[in-house]
């Protein structure tokens, strides 16, 4: 029946949407970690620069 097929398509999309959102999250997580690490490194760089100036 057509209704069944429409439902089946909707289910497939909902599964896809869930999985692609997970991938998106994982990807954002990785990029966030990377950004945080280089930001911390940058802060360390600035700290060490300031230390050099004031000591």
């Amino acid at each position, binding site marked *: 029946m057509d209704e069944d097929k429409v439902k089946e398509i909707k289910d497939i999309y909902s599964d896809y949407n869930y*999985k692609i959102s997970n991938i998106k999250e994982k990807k954002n997580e990785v990029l966030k970690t990377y950004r945080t690490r280089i930001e911390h490194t940058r802060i360390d760089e600035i700290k060490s620069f300031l230390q050099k100036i004031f000591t």
Partner: protein
Amino acid sequence: MIVELNEKEKIGNIEGIEKNATLEIPKSVQEVAQETFSKVENDFMLLSNTDNTLLKINSSVKLNNPEVQSKIAQEMNLTSMLSSLDLEAENLKLETIEKINKIVLGTKDNLNTRDFSKAYHTPQYRTDVAKSILEARRSGLNTEKIRDDFYQKTSEEKSDFESQEKERRVSEVMKEKDIVFLHGLPLSSMEERGSDFNNRVVNNKGLTFEDTYNLIGGLDPTISVFAPSADRPNNGMYKRQGIILGEGKILSAKTQDSGSEAFGLQKRIPKYYNENHKHSAIQPNIDIESIVSGESLQGRDVLYNEITVEKPQIAGLYYDLSIDNDYYQMDNPTWKATFGEIPANEMEKKVQEFKNTEIQKRNSELFQMKKYSEKMNVPLYAFKNENGELRKYGVKFIEHPEYSQDYLKTNLVPKAQEILRNNNNNMNDPAYQEILQEVQKIKRVLNGQEIDYSLVSVTAEEIVNSERIFSQEEKLKMAESIKDKGVFTGQSEKEVEKKLKDLQ
């Protein structure tokens, strides 16, 4: 319950069936699928573009030492992690699209089966299946069963057909059984063509021998042919001359004229003697040998058999040289009816004149066939009924290059004039009569009424082996020449356009 189709579902032609009613899923499912495809694509696009995001991060937070930045990325396995997630997303997208496609269109097998049905089944049958699906749908019944039955039945037919590759292949049958397949063509515009009623895709009128040859050679339409036999009247020939095949696939083979009907250039379906495959162009089992002589007809004189062949390839031209000697016997009641009560010797003379005229006509037609075979650069074969056996020959013409209009004017006319001068214009002079006879002979040769040729016995296998394969360019030229004739109607015009595109 009779289902009235609405405007959208109207089924008037093959295209209509495909698009509207049939074996395709209703639009609502397709619409949902289309919307879902867009959503899938959008979701995928919303995944951050890895390269751009990295570029943004790297330009907004710049370290003094760029090497440190690369080191961090390496330590994290950043590139490989991101690529593997991108790949995962890409695969997920493709899998999802495929899953939805399967629901909308059916499995790949079903698609192939549907194409098979489109190629070989009658429009009426396809309409009937479509109608029963619609009827079931409107009554809230399960349409799946009708659909599944259709797919199962058609896929069995398809698989049987494909498993009979060898027994249906024209070249194989020719080699193995020494049978030939001929497509008769009218030599003059006066000669009757095939039935217009059964062929509504091509307007036969005005098509010459050459046009039809180009149509078959260039467009590979599914055609009707016959296998000749000495056991039938006129050797079982639909036409005394035409095309001899070297390849093709046999769809049906009937002992008699099956009134095959063309539904498109590539679709031809028998109308009669098809009880076990009424809806289809494909006869489930074929037995060529039994249909050639027509033995199964139990003594009835049936003029010719009918075999439908798809993708026919031309091996050459043919002409039947047989003269029915029995017909010219004195005891044939036709003569008495024609000439009335006349003395026997007079009757014999008149019958002989008839026979000579027939022989002259044959020579003249063979000469025309010779011209065609030279122009088309394909061999010419001849048939001859000899003592109840139909023999196949290759024809070798003996040329007389010395016979020309010039030869007549510069040699024979002066010679004749000289004789007449010397004998006081005595036209009964044997020397003059000799020249006169030579003049007449040369004139007959030049007009094709008298030709010298020798016949070399050939087998069907030798005909297959001598087949010249037409090049793509040749086929295109043939197809273009016939397209310009404007003889195609509606659907077949589109088929011709497509074929031309494929050949270009």
